[in-house]
């Protein structure tokens, strides 16, 4: 082909006609007389022709319509200079730490466009190993709380920092000059840098010659005692520290290794949920629960309230709170019997209605068989009880293996005696200035201590609270602290383990880090970021100098990893048990039979109550009661029946309200049935009744908020705070109160919902044994009466699922402890609305993922074989002391989904990767899909949760600030639309894209759903079933795996793994209580 070919449009162009060439440069080859049109001359006076008129018309109409198409105003401001790391649409992850005085977790914070939206665990941590709990991963929402203080306050009105600093600085200086007393009252501070900042402040204020680097702690008082830092824990573990001081000479809480414990005996310690380093323990415990492993732990729990940990125990004995001492003494003596040692003479346990005494004997035998790899713990705050526990562990040789005194944890540093002494000082008018930091003592201290009255006698009162509370209201000045997501810091949760906190967003309000405030008042450079760097440069870097050339590279690595861990550098000392078990036994609390007994406890969702104002946590159903938004009295249904309290609570069957007198403290709360609660005892959770945290939860009746606050009933005995009481009176007021619960039926009705077996059966009987198989395959008869596997008998053509990805999950029921971290993670990831108490009561909770909790019933048939006669009425009633199982249920992504076939508009379809898809914008809301779902996992948007006034104040989407927590990758659904678990399809798509960009296949584990990533025990395995090497595939193929309701023929992509208990079968290990429950 010739390259000199030239194309021309017209003869004029070819001949290069000059007129043509001139015109070729114009936009229009023939002029459009725009000027004439736009001039004021009348159209009929112009000399334009009809053609020109048509040109006008076309041109102007087009111009006008274009002008009329207003582009919507976009309120986004583009970067002029784009920061290196921030690309809109791409998330950034930063490592940080969560430490609020009760919980610790090393976390990964996901940020989008400069704001944090999701929290998951940081697997680099040697303490929490990537685990989190519901309280930690919900904390991202408490950042966006419009009730936070927006700036410093003086006497309740807004002030500026300069004002406040000036006045306080002056007053503090005056106090320091005359040698007055300044006290800093805080909750447990695990941050070395914070302690140093406090130390610096103390030095300045005492004017003494003190090493500015050393912090003033309550263990090592400052050179000048005028300034003291006193740690106060609302829920104290002072008893353990004091007991260890007596037993080993060090007032520490040791590191526990539940992962090395073949036998665990817990006397009232809720270690999976709220006791000390619970996230760490949950992770460790999970490692021991594999029935296929070399060994499986055996867990005994002795307690009065049914706790989360107790529901997971293999064997549970219910005892009264006043019997904790006697139980520990009995255990000690049984172990001593095994060991051939001498007994102690302590109080003895009475008769038990559930075989607790025999269980203690069994526990002792098992402990002795596993000596050196066993662990006994107690949640009691009584020093004598803890001393005896130390004695048991010592007999068993657990120190040095499952208990490590060289690696103590820094949780719960409070010393109750010192706090009581402080209050004494305050009441005597000896305290000139009080700084309240991180604690809310006016709310959480026992009423008997009258902290508010004591505070009134203090001259200068300062609070660092970031949200107004009862204590800050009583203070003269409030210097609000940043939220931890806006803060710099470091955390030392355990000896040798350090992690960093870094801000992931600029401070939203005019707040200032408490440490900066202290540094400023200490006359130092208030940049706390530099201060923390300084601490790490001085103490941390020297230990890593061989690996890092410069401090900057060390610091960058630590900040990136979130942790700097040097456990091997911890000094190893020898400890010998020198505790006096006999004296301790004589000081044990005596069992009482006087009236009711109360044990105060912490709920898994609320903990101490720091985040009681967080709607996600209030709407997280309590794992045991499944009740939301309310505090209540737990009581055994057998007792409730006798006392005339309503037992079957439901949408329109309310609970009865009781008046509980603990000494002179009155608590007024509804009573709810909890099987497993020791008879004649009750439990009440702390953390409620805090005005500062009050949310409008649309409750239909209200009780006096102050009488919900169980902290007032905390006692002080033998120099420690005590959370158990006897001689409590419980009276039915006759008033009814509606309760919102997500689950009103508690038993499995003899159906194979949670498949359970015992370890012995698991090991000795084949799973598919024709007679006794513990996981027999489900078959149905075909048209000819021949039994065939369910998946072969079906009407529908199969989806092609053999090629490409096939996303699925395996949920190990041995590992799931019911904590609910997965639920809050799902809410956070998928913008699930909060609907409030009234809607949850009407069975309209919006959680895509729920954790079902079942109690066993005396009438449960021994097997699932259908020939057995069933008494359905009796099967609805749980046993007085039942076995408990948990089962997380989300959309099963059925390959033969009953929902897909019935949607009239095809809004729900099946993807070629096995997912059941929900197309929100196609849904017209007929709800047939939800009706046809046998698992009932679909959620309908009954109201406009984003705009309807019923949800203002609880649903994050309604508030301009809290909607910043929404995940931009997920649509916020409108009214009238069905939604459900999508298996985090946004994460799947993102993960596939990443793999594609990297040019390789999707690695197993690279894509995690929100639930699978949040679970501390890795109970939920998510992955590609078509990937022959994936974890989920190998789990799905295990003998323990089964489908929920497989006989319906839905062919789900979710497998459950049979729960294997290390105990005898349920029917034998529970004693039947004589009294009838109707």
């Amino acid at each position, binding site marked *: 082909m010739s390259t000199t070919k030239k194309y021309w449009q017209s003869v004029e162009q070819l001949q290069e006609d000059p007129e043509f060439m001139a015109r070729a440069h114009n936009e229009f080859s023939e002029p459009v007389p725009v000027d004439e049109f736009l001039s004021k001359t009348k159209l009929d006076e112009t000399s334009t022709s009809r053609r020109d008129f048509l040109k006008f018309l076309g041109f102007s109409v087009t111009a006008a319509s274009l002008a009329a198409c207003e582009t919507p105003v976009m309120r986004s401001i583009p970067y002029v200079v784009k920061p290196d790391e921030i690309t809109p649409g791409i998330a950034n992850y930063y490592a940080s730490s969560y430490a609020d005085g009760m919980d610790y977790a090393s976390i990964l914070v996901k940020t989008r466009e400069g704001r944090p939206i999701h929290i998951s665990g940081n697997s680099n941590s040697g303490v929490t190993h990537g685990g989190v709990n519901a309280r930690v991963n919900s904390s991202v929402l408490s950042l966006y709380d419009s009730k936070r203080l927006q700036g410093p306050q003086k006497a309740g009105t807004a002030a500026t920092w300069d004002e406040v600093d000036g006045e306080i600085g002056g007053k503090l200086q005056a106090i320091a000059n005359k040698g007055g007393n300044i006290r800093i009252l805080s909750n447990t501070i695990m941050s070395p840098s914070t302690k140093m900042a406090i130390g610096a402040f103390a030095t300045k204020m005492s004017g003494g010659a003190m090493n500015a680097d050393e912090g003033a702690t309550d263990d090592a008082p400052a050179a000048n005692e005028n300034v003291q830092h006193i740690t106060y824990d609302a829920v104290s573990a002072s008893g353990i520290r004091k007991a260890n001081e007596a037993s080993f000479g060090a007032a520490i809480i040791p590191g526990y290794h539940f992962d090395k414990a073949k036998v665990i005996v817990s006397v009232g310690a809720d270690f999976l949920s709220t006791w000390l380093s619970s996230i760490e323990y949950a992770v460790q415990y999970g490692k021991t629960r594999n029935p296929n492993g070399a060994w499986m732990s055996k867990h005994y729990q002795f307690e009065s309230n049914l706790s989360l940990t107790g529901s997971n125990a293999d064997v549970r004995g219910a005892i009264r709170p006043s019997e904790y001492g006697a139980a520990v003494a009995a255990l000690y003596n049984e172990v001593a019997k095994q060991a051939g040692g001498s007994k102690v003479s302590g109080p003895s346990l009475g008769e038990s209605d559930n075989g607790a005494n025999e269980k203690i004997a069994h526990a002792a035998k098992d402990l002795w068989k596993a000596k050196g790899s066993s662990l006994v713990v107690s949640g009691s705050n009584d020093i004598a009880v803890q001393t005896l526990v130390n004695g048991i562990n010592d007999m068993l040789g657990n120190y040095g293996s499952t208990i490590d005194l060289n690696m103590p944890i820094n949780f719960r540093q409070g010393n109750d005696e010192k706090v009581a002494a402080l209050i004494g000082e305050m009441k005597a008018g000896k305290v000139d200035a009080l700084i309240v930091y991180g604690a809310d003592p006016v709310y959480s201290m026992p009423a008997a201590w009258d902290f508010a009255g004591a505070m009134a006698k203090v001259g200068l009162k300062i609070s660092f609270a970031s949200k107004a509370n009862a204590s800050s209201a009583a203070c003269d000045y409030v210097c609000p602290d940043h939220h931890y997501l806006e803060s710099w810091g470091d955390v030392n949760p355990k000896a040798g383990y350090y992690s960093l906190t870094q801000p992931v967003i600029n401070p939203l309000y005019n707040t200032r880090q408490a440490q900066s405030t202290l540094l400023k008042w200490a006359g130092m450079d208030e940049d706390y970021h530099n201060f923390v760097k300084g601490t790490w440069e001085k103490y941390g870097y020297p230990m890593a100098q061989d690996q890092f050339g410069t401090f900057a590279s060390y610091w960058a690595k630590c900040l990136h990893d979130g942790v700097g861990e040097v456990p091997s550098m911890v000094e190893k000392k020898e400890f010998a048990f020198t505790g006096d078990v006999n004296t301790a036994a004589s000081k044990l609390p005596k069992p009482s039979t006087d009236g009711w007994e109360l044990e105060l406890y912490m709920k898994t969702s609320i903990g101490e109550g720091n985040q009681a104002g967080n709607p996600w946590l209030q709407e997280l159903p309590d794992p045991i009661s499944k009740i939301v938004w309310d505090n209540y009295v737990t009581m055994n249904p057998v007792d409730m029946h006798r006392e005339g309290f309503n037992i079957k609570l*439901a*949408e*329109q069957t309310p609970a009865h309200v009781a008046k509980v007198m603990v000494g002179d403290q009155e608590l007024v709360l509804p009573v709810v049935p909890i099987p497993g609660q020791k008879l004649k005892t009750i439990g009440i959770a702390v953390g409620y009744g805090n005005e500062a945290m009050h949310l409008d939860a649309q409750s239909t009746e209200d009780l006096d908020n102050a009488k919900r606050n169980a902290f007032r009933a905390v006692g002080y005995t033998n120099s420690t705070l005590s959370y158990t009481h006897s001689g409590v009176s419980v009276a039915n007021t006759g008033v009814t109160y509606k309760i919102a619960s997500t*689950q*009103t*039926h*508690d*038993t*499995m*009705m*003899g*159906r194979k*919902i949670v498949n359970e077996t015992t370890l012995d059966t698991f090991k000795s009987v084949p799973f598919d044994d024709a007679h006794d198989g513990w996981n027999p395959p489900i078959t149905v008869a075909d048209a000819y009466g021949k039994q065939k596997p369910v998946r072969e008998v079906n009407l529908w053509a199969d989806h092609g699922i053999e090629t490409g990805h096939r996303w699925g999950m395996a949920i190990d029921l041995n590992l799931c402890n019911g904590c609910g971290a997965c639920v809050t993670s799902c809410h956070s990831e998928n913008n699930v609305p909060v609907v409030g108490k009234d*809607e949850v009561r009407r*069975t*309209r*909770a919006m959680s895509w993922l729920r954790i*079902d909790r079942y109690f066993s019933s005396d009438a449960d048939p021994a097997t699932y074989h*259908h020939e057995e006669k*069933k008494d*359905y*009425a009796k099967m609805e009633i749980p046993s007085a002391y039942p076995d408990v199982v948990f089962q997380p*249920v989300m959309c099963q992504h059925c390959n033969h989904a*009953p929902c897909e*076939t*019935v*949607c*009239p*508009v*095809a809004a729900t379809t099946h993807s070629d990767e096995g997912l059941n898809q929900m197309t929100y914008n*196609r*849904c*017209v*809301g*007929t*709800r*047939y899909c*939800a*009706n*046809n779902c*046998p*698992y*009932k996992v*679909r*959620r*309908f*948007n*009954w*109201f*406009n949760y984003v705009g*309807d006034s019923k949800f203002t104040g609880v649903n994050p989407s309604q508030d301009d600030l809290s909607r910043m927590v929404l995940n931009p990758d997920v649509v916020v659904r*409108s*009214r*009238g*639309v*069905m939604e459900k678990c999508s298996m985090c399809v946004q994460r799947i798509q993102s993960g596939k894209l990443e793999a594609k960009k990297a040019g390789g296949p999707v690695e197993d584990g690279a894509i995690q759903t929100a639930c699978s990533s949040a679970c501390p025990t890795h109970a939920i395995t998510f992955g590609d079933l078509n990937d022959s090497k994936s974890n989920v595939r190998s789990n799905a193929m295990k003998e323990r795996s089964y489908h*929920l*309701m497989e006989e*319906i023929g*839905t062919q789900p992509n979710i497998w459950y793994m049979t729960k294997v208990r290390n105990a005898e079968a349920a029917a034998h290990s529970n004693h039947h209580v004589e009294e009838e429950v109707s």
Partner: protein
Amino acid sequence: MHKESAIRTPLILTDKTYHQITEDVCAPVEGKANKYWYMAFTVALIAAVWGLGCITYTVGRGIGTWGLNNTVGWAWDITNFVWWVGIGHAGTLISAVLLIFRQKWRMAINRSAEAMTIFAVMMAALFPGIHMGRIWMAYWVFPLPNEFGSLWVNFNSPLLWDVFAISTYFSVSLVFWYIGLIPDFATVRDRAIHPVAKKAYSILSFGWSGDVKAWIRFEEVSLVLAGIATPLVFSVHSIVSMDFATSVIPGWHTTIFPPYFVAGAIFSGFAMVQTLLLIVRKVVSLEAYITIKHVEYMNIIIVITGSMVGVAYLSELFISWYSGVPYEQYAFLNRATGPYWWAYASMMTCNVVTPQLFWVKGIRRSLIASFILSIFVNIGMWFERFVIIVTSLHRDYIPSNWSMFHPTFVDIGIFIGTIGIFFVLFLTYARFFPVLALNELKSILKSSGEFHKKQ
């Protein structure tokens, strides 16, 4: 030419002539309405307005204003839907099936029964609309070509089959009813004096000339439409029953539903016809046309279909036990002994016991007994649908999902509202339309009229 035995009970009593028939039927249309009409209309209108208000509240604020929840996604809405559709079946059966079977007694009742069907189907059609979360997209259930690709509807879905069934049913019934009305409108037109009435009825009578050709075509069209409408009697409610039968829920998942529902529909439809006509015949003085024989025939159909329904209930109970499927067994045990036992008891008493009373001649020929029992039947049939829907949903496979359903004032208000709207429509019809098929009655006067039999 219809020939009838002289000893057969006459279908038109007393000595009526063609002119008298015209007078009897047209006078109520032409004169002023009596005070009973005004009273009934006012009450109906109040109920209708209240219902429309509740509907507006629902559409404006959300389905959350009802008592539904995550476990029980349908309750009063679909109960009412099926109840109204069922009621409509009597009219179609009377108009079409009895036409094909040449049952002349249908002529006195078919006009009103078909009117009842039209209005009942209109009320029924309300519910699939308002029960949707996003009713403003309701047109998406229609397979219309569109800009989304075209995105078609899901032909597997029984709800979609409902769309076709109900729309076909409504359109065919409307056409059938209207065609039958044309000659009668013409009669009223010819007698009309007031210019507005004359104009209105002229339009409505579609230019009917009354010549032989027109009558022949009229008869042929009626037969054709009857042929089209007859299968609808069986198909429409079978389709509606598939809303439940094709699901997996125990208590819904059963093949007995299509015949069971069809029998039940005819059963409740005839009961509603009885309720309406026993009043109409008294108030409009049509006792000579809607005779005790008519009432008796309808009661016989009620006892037959009621027995079919009773047998269906018993076979459901038997099969739930015989199947050995624990979920099925529990579903029925729960119906009889669970929290909604009172609904089940109402259903059983009203539907199984009451129709059996019609075996007694004295009862089936008693107007008062027929009226009272017809109300019971409709109450019982409402409870049947309520029991099927709510008791099956509220306790299905997984016990953690078990919940209760409690209606709100909006649920109840909408139901009462539809009754109100229905009566507003029916009373308007009775006021302005000839309530008997004039032209058909005249065709049997000479053969079935009492006077003529005596000759």
